[in-house]
């Protein structure tokens, strides 16, 4: 029997080999040979095809299902076209099919969802990929863990917290926890925060007494104010002690830290009313105080333990601050390693040593190295010497560029050279007195060599000694010019040189003074020459306008809507003044200037106020100076009249000092 199956768009004839058994024989389907769509086949159609009734057909199909499932025929249509309704029908029983049979259009009405149906292989591959990625991630994490240790958040220690605190934080805490009303707390806290820093930029900390005064001034009873101030002082002292301890720790670790100058030393509580910020305690004494044998043994052990395990030792020390004074002595001794006395016996034995001393510090016996070795000290000394050499070099380099030094050297050299001839003549006179004396020459040579060696590097000495060398050379070359000179004679020569030098110095001084007096005379003359025409000009101005007029300076400025800005001719500060001002004062130097209008220099005056030079009348030697306000952008207006190319001119006869600019 032929059975026709209706596909969505086609009708095809069903054959037995087209039947695909699924769901363990409970469902049957066939693939449309035209479009490849998988179509659910009804048991009735299968029964008709097989020529059986429905139950027999079921039996037959179930028996076939026990065999390996038939592979679906290949189709040229990709499997992407997936319809969820297919699944619905796939899972439908025969009875359900019967119920809905006759309503096939329902299937058509199902909304078609375009979803790609992944194949098993694809899913498998995907799962494998994901598994592989997870595995790779885990390996990477493991590698990272090996490379860098896990970040562990450690709670800040008490010392760290204290180190980060400021005195103002303490004050705020005290106010916050006080018994005053909340409003007062807020206002006082705000007020205390307003204090400006000191002139040197350091924080201007509040002192307990000041705090008390202001709280009382605020209106809080003196008792409460005192209570707050006392608590503040107590906490402040405590804080200072802790910081002092931190300072010591930092000092021990080689970095003085930032609290060195602010810390109150341990065990010296500040008295009430005393400024806790003033350094009260003397500095750590450089001379080691005397210690008893027990303390001595502790110190030795401290040094040893510190050398063995510094971190553990410092941790122990921070937990046992009472040993800090002894540790200070130990530090001093470590800085001077050759003063450390070697402990003859184990100091821990029977000395009442604290049991906590050795806890967690490890002990490797007393033969361990303590202090700094000789080589280290030698290296340190060598480093220091190198530094010293560098600094000397830099000073010499600096002095090279010093003009004064160079000038002095030049003068000295000239002086010594000019003295040569005179000394020669003196020596000639001495030459006849005694016979030749080779010893003197030898002594002179030795003296020169020694002095040259010892004074190497000093330019002044070098110059003098070079000159003396030349002297010596000439002495040996001229066949005995100095021959016959004894040591006394030589001393006389030197004294003669000194005398000559002082005379020359006096002469130079006199010359200089003479020059300066002549120069002063010239200046006075020049001044008179300059002042006379100015006075004439002033007299003329008085005669003409009743007001003095002298030098004027030209200064360019900027004009805006209501103001003019000009740099002060004296100090350069910008003077801003209204347009209608006739007298202006410099905000910086306080000089006062009169401003008048004038014409620009390169233009012919057209009825404006003449400049000073013109007013002085041609032959005057005073230079023209005027303050000009130049503004090319804005129209110049004054008194309603447009004066676009006019300028301001300053008349400075009325400076604050009464002089003339």
């Amino acid at each position, binding site marked *: 029997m032929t059975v026709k199956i209706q596909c969505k768009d086609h009708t095809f004839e069903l054959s037995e080999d087209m039947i695909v058994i699924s769901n363990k024989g409970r469902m049957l389907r066939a693939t449309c040979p035209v479009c490849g769509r998988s179509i659910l086949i009804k048991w009735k159609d299968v029964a008709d095809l097989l020529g059986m009734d429905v139950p027999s057909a079921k039996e037959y199909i179930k028996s076939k299902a026990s065999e390996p499932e038939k592979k679906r025929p290949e189709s040229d249509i990709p499997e992407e076209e997936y319809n969820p309704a297919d699944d619905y029908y796939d899972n439908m029983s025969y009875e359900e099919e019967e119920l809905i049979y006759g309503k096939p259009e329902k299937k058509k009405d199902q909304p078609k969802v375009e979803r790609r149906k992944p194949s098993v292989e694809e899913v498998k591959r995907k799962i494998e990929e994901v598994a592989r990625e997870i595995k790779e991630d885990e390996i990477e994490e493991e590698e990272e863990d090996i490379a860098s240790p896990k970040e562990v958040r450690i709670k800040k220690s008490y010392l760290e917290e204290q180190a980060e605190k400021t005195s103002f934080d303490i004050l705020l805490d005290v106010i916050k926890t006080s018994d005053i009303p909340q409003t007062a707390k807020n206002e006082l806290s705000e007020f205390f925060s*307003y204090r400006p820093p000191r002139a040197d930029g350091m924080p201007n900390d509040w002192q307990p007494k000041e705090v008390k005064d202001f709280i009382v*001034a605020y209106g809080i009873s003196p008792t409460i104010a005192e209570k707050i101030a006392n608590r503040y002082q107590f906490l402040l002292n405590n804080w200072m002690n802790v910081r002092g301890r931190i300072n010591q720790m930092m000092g021990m670790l080689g970095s003085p830290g930032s609290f060195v100058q602010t810390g109150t030393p341990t065990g010296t509580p500040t008295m009430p009313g005393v400024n806790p910020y003033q350094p009260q305690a003397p500095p750590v004494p450089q001379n080691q105080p005397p210690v008893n044998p027990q303390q001595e043994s502790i110190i030795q052990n401290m040094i040893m333990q510190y050398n063995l395990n510094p971190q553990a030792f410092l941790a122990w020390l921070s937990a046992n601050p009472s040993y800090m004074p002894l540790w200070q002595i130990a530090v001093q001794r470590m800085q001077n390693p050759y003063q450390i006395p070697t402990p003859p016996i184990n100091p821990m034995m029977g000395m009442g040593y604290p049991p906590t001393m050795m806890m967690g510090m490890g002990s490797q016996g007393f033969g361990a190295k303590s202090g700094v070795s000789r080589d280290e000290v030698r290296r340190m000394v060598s480093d220091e010497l190198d530094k010293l050499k560098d600094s000397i070099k830099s000073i010499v380099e600096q002095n090279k560029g010093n003009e004064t030094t160079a000038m002095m050297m030049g003068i000295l050299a000239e002086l010594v050279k000019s003295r040569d001839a005179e000394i020669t003549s003196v020596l000639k006179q001495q030459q006849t007195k005694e016979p030749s004396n080779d010893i003197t020459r030898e002594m002179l040579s030795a003296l020169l060599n020694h002095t040259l060696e010892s004074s190497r590097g000093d330019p002044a000495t070098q110059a003098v000694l070079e000159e003396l060398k030349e002297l010596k050379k000439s002495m040996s070359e001229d066949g005995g010019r100095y021959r016959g000179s004894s040591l006394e004679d030589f001393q006389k020569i030197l004294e003669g040189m000194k005398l000559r030098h002082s005379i020359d110095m006096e002469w130079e001084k006199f010359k200089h003074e003479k020059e300066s007096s002549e120069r002063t005379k010239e200046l006075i003359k020049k001044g008179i020459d300059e002042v006379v025409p100015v006075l004439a000009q002033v007299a003329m101005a008085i005669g003409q306008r009743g007001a003095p007029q002298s030098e004027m300076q030209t200064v360019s400025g900027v004009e805006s809507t209501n103001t003019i800005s000009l740099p002060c001719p004296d100090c350069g500060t910008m003077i801003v*003044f209204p347009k209608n001002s006739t007298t202006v004062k410099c905000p910086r130097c306080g000089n006062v200037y009169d401003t008048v209008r004038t014409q620009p220099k390169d233009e012919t005056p057209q009825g404006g106020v003449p400049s000073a030079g013109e007013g002085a009348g041609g032959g005057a030697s005073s230079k023209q100076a005027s303050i000009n306000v130049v503004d090319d952008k804005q129209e110049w207006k004054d008194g309603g009249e447009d004066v676009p190319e006019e300028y301001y001119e300053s008349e400075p006869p009325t400076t604050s000092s009464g002089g003339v600019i």
Partner: protein
Amino acid sequence: MGIETILEDIGNSIVRRKLNEVFGDPAVNPDNLVKAISEGVSLWESCKNEVAKEAESIPPIVLNLASNYVDTIERKYGGFTKLMLEYLREDRTDLYSVIINTEGGEEWLDNQVMEILKGVGIIK
């Protein structure tokens, strides 16, 4: 350090900061200042709300202790106007120059300072 000195330090720092805030406004320039002086503009009347708002940020304790502060300023500087001029001279030379070079400039500033201090409630 005496209470007056501390109060003066604090007061001065507040006043100077406020002054610079106000004069930092671009509208406060030499041109406008000349105009305000010549027309006798009252700063307190024209910007009462703004000044009052500024004054609100001053800690009440300063206002409570203001009489002491005013006395100190009067004694040390010869008045608030002189102090203002000193600050202007250091911080805003251009405005200071306008005030000293404008006829009636210092009187105008004095009036403004007094009005504002009264308005804020620092002096009576």
